[in-house]
């Protein structure tokens, strides 16, 4: 991984699992030995309102909030509300939406979130085993198998280069 901080924003609606997904990313960065900060506003999140979680990691993270327009990755769980969070993404940042999974999206159900993390992971220099460990750390045991499978699907689809969402260079390689 290069110097510099990786900035990820996860956006969705209350009840969609934004906070859990951001816990997994933060855990992966943590287990990879990096400095990490994760921040979100919890207020009213479970009453269905918009929620966003910021995760920043690298050698040393200062502010816990991703500055506006500086997100390298925007993971959108609620694409219909994407306009709310799009300004957070930098101009060459990567947007990850459920649509990239095509027909698989429906069959994944709740593990769709984890498939999207799999897609995110393909852009990041954190070992796959570390991600699996992070999933096991954050999620209850009975959900491990299903989520590990979903993660692998998302990761392999992103690595094989989905034409719609993944033509851009990874944000890491465009950082200066």
């Amino acid at each position, binding site marked *: 991984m290069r110097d510099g901080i990786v900035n990820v924003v996860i956006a969705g609606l209350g009840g969609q699992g934004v*906070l859990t997904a951001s816990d997994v990313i933060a855990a992966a960065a943590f287990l990879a030995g990096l400095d*990490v900060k994760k921040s979100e*506003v919890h207020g009213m999140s479970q*009453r*269905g309102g918009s929620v966003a979680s910021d995760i920043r990691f690298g050698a040393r993270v*200062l*502010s816990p909030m991703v500055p*506006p327009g500086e997100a390298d990755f925007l993971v959108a769980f609620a694409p219909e509300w994407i306009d709310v969070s799009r300004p957070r993404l930098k101009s060459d940042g990567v947007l990850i939406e459920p649509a990239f999974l095509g027909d698989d999206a429906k069959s994944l159900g709740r593990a769709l979130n984890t498939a999207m993390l799999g897609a995110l992971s393909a852009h990041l220099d954190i070992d796959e085993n570390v991600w699996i460990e992070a999933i096991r750390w954050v999620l209850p045991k009975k959900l491990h198998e299903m989520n590990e499978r979903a993660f692998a699907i998302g990761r392999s689809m992103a690595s094989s280069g989905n034409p719609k969402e993944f033509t851009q260079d990874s944000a890491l390689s465009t950082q200066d």
Partner: protein
Amino acid sequence: MTETKLTERLLLSGNEAIALAAKHAGVALATGYPGTPSTEILERLSKLGGPAQWAPNEKVAMEVAIGAAFGGGRAIVTMKHVGLNVAADPLFTVAYTGCSGGLVIVSADDPGMASSQNEQDNRHYAVAAGVPMLEPADSQEAYEYTLRALELSERWRTPVLLRVTTRVCHSKTLVRPSSNQPSPPAPHYEKDIKARVMIPAYARPAHHRLRARLDEIARWNETSPLNLMFEGQGPALGIICSGVATMHAMEAAPGAAILKLGVTYPLPMGLIRSFAGRFERCVVIEEGDPWLADAIRAAGISVEDKPAKYRFGELDVARVRKILSHDDSADTVAPPGKPPALCAACPHRASFEALKNLDCIVAGDIGCYTLSVLPPLEAMDTCVCMGASIGVGLGLRHVLPPDEARRVVSVIGDSTFMHSGITGLVEMMYNVPPTGHVVLLLDNGTTAMTGLQEHPGTGRSLGHEPAHKVDYEALARGIGIESVHTIDPLVEPGRLEVVLRECLAAEKPALIIVRRPCILAAGKIRQYEQARRQGASCDCATAPGSATHA
């Protein structure tokens, strides 16, 4: 995230870090009342096996903590910023009496009002009451400052304010806990009437002692290790800051020298003066009111303040960059997201539909049910602070012309009723408005708004263990209310509106209890009840609290 296997390096929220420090410091008692962003401190401490309990409100919590500290025990009391308004009366006088055991008051402020009714800056309380104040910037400091606050409190026998903000409470950052805290002194009673009984004759010298103590602490603070200095590149720019604003400032201005104040009352003016004097430009970066900037300038030190518009809302890296570059362009505002709403099957809905159908003027209160103010219901007319519904409703009844007064109803949640609604009922019976009054008590069996906490009306303790349960109907009758009704809106859908109409027409003081558990809490309540019946204690690992709100 848990502490498993990570003894030397943890990823914790500020609230979790405070709880861990409280546990490591061996606090004898931790109490508080839920309120975002403070709630998880006690929930986490309870899961860590520490002594954590909910009080009915912040004033009672403060008083219980004061008693524990008078008895020589270490005590922590937690609340959101507005909670300190409720607890302000004991705060101002415990500053005079001081304490034997460490007493730390955690005030969790909410700049930007992520989930609060105002964005008051509680640093003023430290100044007004005369208690030392510590402001951590991240979880590591939240952990350390909790320990230091207890030490300071014991060293100077003074309560200490640990002032945190939403970003510190809810951000997860790395923590390296210190191992092997010395064990706390054992509680025991020291009789000291002149220090503890604040009649004027004893309070006058106590006030002198308080000011002398603050002078001493100010001198100590000049060289306190809690204030940090980071050298920059040359004499161009120095920044004075505290709390999470420090993190934004360091990122926004990597070349600037930084004086990060950890103890923000009483201020180390000598240190600040010598720092400010070294720079061509010295800027104060602080969230909320210009407390630091005003105090520093009042001491005759020349510093630059942020423009007035940054008094509103949180700071972030972009806003700090703008302050530093004198860029007064408007902030980019994110488009409004989807607003929260009452859950589809929320039992509160029925009450607001009935109130709307009867065209009531609704003196409302704070809780999930406040969401009824949003479209399409728009069925709440006032909301000031917890418990205000009853007093405000009575005031309206007293002055409005009779045809309007008759439509006024006060609506209050069960946790809010326990917090500060009981005295409102007493007032209703003592100064009865000419048209009577109607109070709707929305008993959903939990404190839903802040993430499903227990309270004295649920019959369970913070850890969901069986506890005494307040009987609202008997309480109301004891106060003297004759017209008391209990309705389950699910079992008897139409009855609420009928009873409400009758009570309004009767023009006498009435209490209608609408009882039906919150749908998010119902399953858990069943589990706890089952555990109670089986005589087993419930599994705290499955306890609610993972989701947290106002």
